[in-house]
């Protein structure tokens, strides 16, 4: 990386209390957790007595007002601390990561894992997203979860989640990342099943944890394999020697990266392990925003980006990453087309966008993948929070009139624009962003990914050329679908006539300040957030304002120290990437085409669906044909149940009742019974009859006499 003898001028940078950034959310967890436990006692006593403890009626106790300040408070402090460090790092021109080691976690004769954090450009950008967007979502939750008796428990879990997520991105070695990895899985389980009295919701949490664990298997195996090769498992140690130790495209590195891919598909909900994410919508909506949109699900992308050196050395796996990504993007988009629950649409949209991120890191565009991670965090969090505001409002209305309708079903909405204008506006901004329409954030990030895919297809020594062309086409198709289903969501929810009911309408209202201010901030980020990374070609063109506006490839440069090793490997082996798309045309041309196409889709959809009559959920007919298949998610869950879950359960039962009870235990009992039988036979000698005893007595004497006689 540096030529020998040349010293790049590096401003020595001391991070400010980085450990505190991690500890603050943990502290929040401890405080909120204690408050939750004490509140839970009161609630439990009430339930035992036959009722519920109404925290509203009895005045809000400290256990319910303190978390309002502690929860978002620690987040704000963490964010500010992160910001200070970010600014510091900006000025420092760091080329090597800064490592702070606190204690030795595991130390055996051969293996040494330190409890250490690594601060570099990649971890810093992740930290900013986590603490920043996390803070906004915490604030939103104050309004959203106001009336929930589990209020302190909610914030405890949410703080704990941020703690683990920070551990994940700040860890200096794979085992430390793994702590965060499983930890966020735990919090996801706790938060999805937050309303645990509902069996469906509790089961959704359980499903998430178990499916995630399948991915965790991959993570562990990758760590073991790396340990076998390197005798150490920290990033600096592994990445430093990786190029020298591994054969490009060799079996070992391919196996390691495949294991990591398994882990990533589990955490980031890609095919085949995405099935937990739609069910995860059972949790409170801010949870869906934070965990299942902005942060936890991006952990897989982060993993691959962090391990960019390893993936660059394994072209087969990278192609697989990209393939899984684009297939998932397309597959999930098709399902989103026909979902009626607003959160389900967003859930499948998330799966789909994660697919884009995978596509990005799969073709070696690590920065593009992380860029899309960032912009997606902005607009998806916004969409979820907005949906949360809508659901909150719908709940209120339906609750007031005791109407038994589903507050999340879009067929029961309609025309909400009049009642929730801020939500409407901000969500439209997010929709335009996610559809990839210029000049919103999503345009730049999605465009770059699609462009890089095309560039890869035309690279000099591209390994699977035709394949990448296919990826490129599929990515474009998925983008069009994205525009369609998002526009559909907006139209069904906010436009047209209101279907909720005339009595309910008067209770529909805009969200309170704690809820719409975060929306507004996220909207601003969704609008302007893309300008931090405009590629060179675009900058000079109309799409970049002809170079007037202060935009730049900032993110690329920022992440360069982290990604350059991988890029070099890629350049060495793949040669130069193409400068034209597979079907011809430059970046600017395709940028224009995709924007115009997406915009057209949105407008046409709005026009077509806006005038169509939508039946409310209870009166709607069952879908048929292809619609039915899409609505039923291609019956994937059913497939898994039939071919994976049920067979395992059946085998378990057979193992129990037949093998364990009958065969193994049967043998044991058999031995016991044989002994008893022998004893019973022996007991037949005990007749109680004197004659018998006399007989044996005599026989014995004769035997002894005989023996004496024979000896003598």
């Amino acid at each position, binding site marked *: 990386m540096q030529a020998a003898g040349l010293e790049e001028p590096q401003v020595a940078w001391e991070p400010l209390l980085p450990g505190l950034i991690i500890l603050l959310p943990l502290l929040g967890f401890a405080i909120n957790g204690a408050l939750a*436990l004490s509140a*839970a*006692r009161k609630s*439990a006593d009430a339930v*035992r007595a*036959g009722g519920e403890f109404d925290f509203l009626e009895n005045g809000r106790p400290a256990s319910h007002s303190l978390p309002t300040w502690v929860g978002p408070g620690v987040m704000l402090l963490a964010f500010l601390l992160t910001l200070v460090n970010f600014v510091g790092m900006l000025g420092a021109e760091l080329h090597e990561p800064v490592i702070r080691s606190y204690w030795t*976690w*595991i*130390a*055996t*004769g*051969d*293996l040494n894992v330190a409890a250490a954090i690594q601060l570099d450009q990649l971890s810093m950008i992740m930290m900013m997203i986590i603490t920043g967007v996390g803070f906004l979502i915490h604030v939103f939750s104050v309004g959203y979860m106001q009336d929930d008796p589990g209020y302190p428990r909610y914030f405890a879990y949410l703080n704990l989640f941020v703690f683990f997520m920070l551990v994940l991105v700040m860890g200096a070695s794979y*085992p430390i990342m793994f*702590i965060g*990895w*499983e*930890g966020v899985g*735990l919090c996801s*389980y706790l938060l999805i*099943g937050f309303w*645990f*009295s*509902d*069996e469906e919701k*509790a*089961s959704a949490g*359980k499903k998430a*944890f*178990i499916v995630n*664990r*399948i991915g*965790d*298997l991959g993570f*562990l*195996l990758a760590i*073991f*394999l790396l*340990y*076998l*090769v*390197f*005798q150490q498992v920290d990033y600096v140690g592994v990445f430093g020697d990786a*190029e*020298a130790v591994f*054969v*490009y495209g060799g*079996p*070992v590195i391919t196996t390691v990266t495949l294991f990591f891919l398994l882990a990533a598909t589990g955490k980031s909900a890609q095919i085949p392990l995405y099935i937990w994410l739609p069910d995860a919508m059972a949790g409170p909506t801010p949870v869906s925003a934070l965990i299942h949109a902005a942060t936890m699900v991006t952990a897989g992308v982060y993993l691959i980006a962090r391990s960019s050196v390893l993936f660059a050395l394994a072209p087969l796996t990278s192609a697989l990453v990209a393939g899984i990504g684009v297939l998932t993007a397309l597959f999930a988009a098709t399902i989103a087309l026909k979902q009626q629950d607003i959160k389900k649409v967003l859930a499948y949209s998330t799966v789909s966008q994660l697919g884009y991120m995978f596509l990005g890191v799969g073709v070696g565009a690590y920065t593009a993948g992380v860029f899309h991670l960032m912009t997606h965090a902005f607009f998806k969090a916004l969409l979820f929070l907005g949906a949360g505001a809508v659901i909150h409002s719908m709940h209120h209305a339906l609750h007031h009139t005791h109407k038994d309708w589903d507050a999340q079903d879009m067929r029961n909405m309609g025309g909400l624009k009049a009642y929730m204008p801020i939500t409407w506006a901000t969500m439209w901004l997010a929709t335009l962003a996610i559809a990839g329409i210029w000049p919103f954030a999503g345009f730049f990030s999605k465009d770059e990914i699609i462009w890089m895919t095309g560039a890869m297809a035309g690279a000099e020594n591209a390994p699977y050329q035709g394949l990448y062309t296919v990826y490129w086409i599929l990515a474009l198709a998925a983008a069009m679908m994205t525009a369609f289903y998002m526009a559909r969501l907006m139209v069904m929810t906010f436009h047209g006539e209101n279907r909720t009911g005339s009595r309910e309408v008067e209770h529909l209202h805009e969200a309170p300040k704690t809820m719409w201010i975060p929306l507004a901030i996220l909207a601003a980020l969704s609008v302007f957030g893309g300008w931090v990374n405009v590629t060179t070609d675009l900058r000079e063109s109309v799409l970049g304002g002809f170079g007037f506006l202060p935009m730049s490839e900032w993110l690329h440069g920022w992440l360069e120290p982290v990604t350059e090793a991988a890029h070099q490997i890629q350049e060495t082996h793949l040669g130069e990437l193409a400068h034209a798309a597979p079907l011809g045309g430059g970046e600017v041309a395709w940028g224009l085409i995709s924007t115009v196409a997406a915009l057209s889709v949105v407008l046409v959809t709005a026009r077509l669906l806006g005038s169509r009559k939508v039946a409310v959920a209870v009166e709607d007919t069952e879908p048929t044909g292809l619609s039915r298949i899409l609505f039923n998610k291609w019956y994937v869950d059913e497939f898994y149940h039939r071919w994976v879950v049920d067979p395992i*359960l059946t*085998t*378990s*039962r057979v*193992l*129990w009742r037949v093998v*364990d009870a009958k065969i*193994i*235990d049967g043998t*044991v009992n058999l031995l*016991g019974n044989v002994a008893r039988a022998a004893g019973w036979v022996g007991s037949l000698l005990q007749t109680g009859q004197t004659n018998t005893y006399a007989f044996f007595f005599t026989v014995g004497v004769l035997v002894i006499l005989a023996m004496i006689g024979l000896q003598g």
Partner: protein
Amino acid sequence: MLNALAYENWALHALIWLPLLGMVHVLWAAEDRAKWLALRWSLLVFVLSVGLWWAYDPALGGGYQLESSEPWIATWGVNYALGLDGISLFMVMLTTFTTPLAVLGSFNYIKKRQKPFYALMLLLEVGVVGVFTAVDLFLFYVFFELTLVPMYFIIGIWGGERRVYAAIKFFLYTAFGSLLMLVGILYIYARGKALLGVTSFAFVDLLQIPLTPGEQMWLFGAFALAFAIKVPVFPFHTWLPDAHVEAPTPGSVVLAAVLLKMGTYGFVRFLLPFFPVAAQHPSVVTLMLVLGVVGIIYAAWVAAVQPDAKKLVAYTSVAHMGFVVVGIFALNVNGLQGGLLVMISHGISTGALFLLLGMLYERRHTRLIHEFGGIGRVAPWLATAFVITALTSIGLPGTSGFVGEFLALVGAFEDHPGIGIFATTGVIFAAYYMLPMVQSIFFNALEKPENQAVQDLSRREVAILAPMIALMIVIGVHPTPLLRKMEPSVQMVLERVYAAAPPSAAVIESDPDVSGFETAE
């Protein structure tokens, strides 16, 4: 301070004889005083045992410390000889830590015939501490068999419906294995006499005996059978579910936390150092590793479909011990330390699980999972404790369960990648058996009125669970002190194993070049 008290001279003796004194005291006293006396005596033993942590110094190498030896049966060369090394240190402390907690957990559970019960618990402690501190093989065997008697009575008298069947099964099954071991012991003694002219049962003397590979193989088999039944290793595990289900809660706690460890301790203390040629013989290693993996997966699958919560946890013990066996027979530092750490973690977490199940049983008088539901709403603290313990059991990083499993798997993977892969799938199945039970008991709707009346944790119960949960987290976050303390002794065991390896044998060290992986030139 410890030196001032001459701690080294009397500590181990105190740990064995004080519970015996306590037992006599309990039998002498009034019925309603019995439990308090038992608690005080076991707490005293625990407090005294804490000093062991500082008394044992790993810097002195991995050999025995705090040694003492008195002739007992001189004509046979049997000595009353005690000692402590890095491995037995933790086993002893686990025992002295668990016993007072089990006693405290019995307070509301044992209503009739309390005196004999608490006396038997203390006698059990005598036996187990004796097993872990004996450095004379005869003495070891005596203590080993001694533990069977109180356990038999505890299960048979204060247990559940099928207690007599379970108690007899437990006793006969385990004793049968030990008998074969006795033959082995006597054989070793006889060889020692014949080859070296030494009449002694002391470990240090017996280790000098040059046993032929053939002898080592069948002796390994004899000893292994005894310990394999105790651990329990598949397929000798079927006594465990019955024993656990029928035993009273405190009996289950001690059985799981401590008695099972005697088996794996036996593997490490005897099988590896005494019979190193056999221990690393490829077929033996493969057999043990395969049985370990089968234990992990099979037991997990069977656990998942159990309707009885206690039986479920019993099977999880088999699964955890599978990890221990895999770690031990990886025959490297990581694996062995991992196995030991799993033993410690399992003792605490499974002990806690049984205590928690016992608390549920005291409230609802049922162990069937489907009888519960929604308990989390009326007993949130109990639910919290249970969830944390369950997470430790399935090895969530940050808890003690993870470190041990991780190291054991690393160790296994180093030398036997295929086994390592299969064993690691155990982490998925752990979630598969644990989470549904947690959900069925604590989550879901609160339907039954009997469940609605369930009380949350009392102060006594918090006092029991708090130290256990604290340990689970502390060991999970900072296991290094434990690892450092046990390392020299572990190295000593492994050195004996490696020393017996023929130069051309396929004993694979953790050296990447030898492992056959492709590397770039």
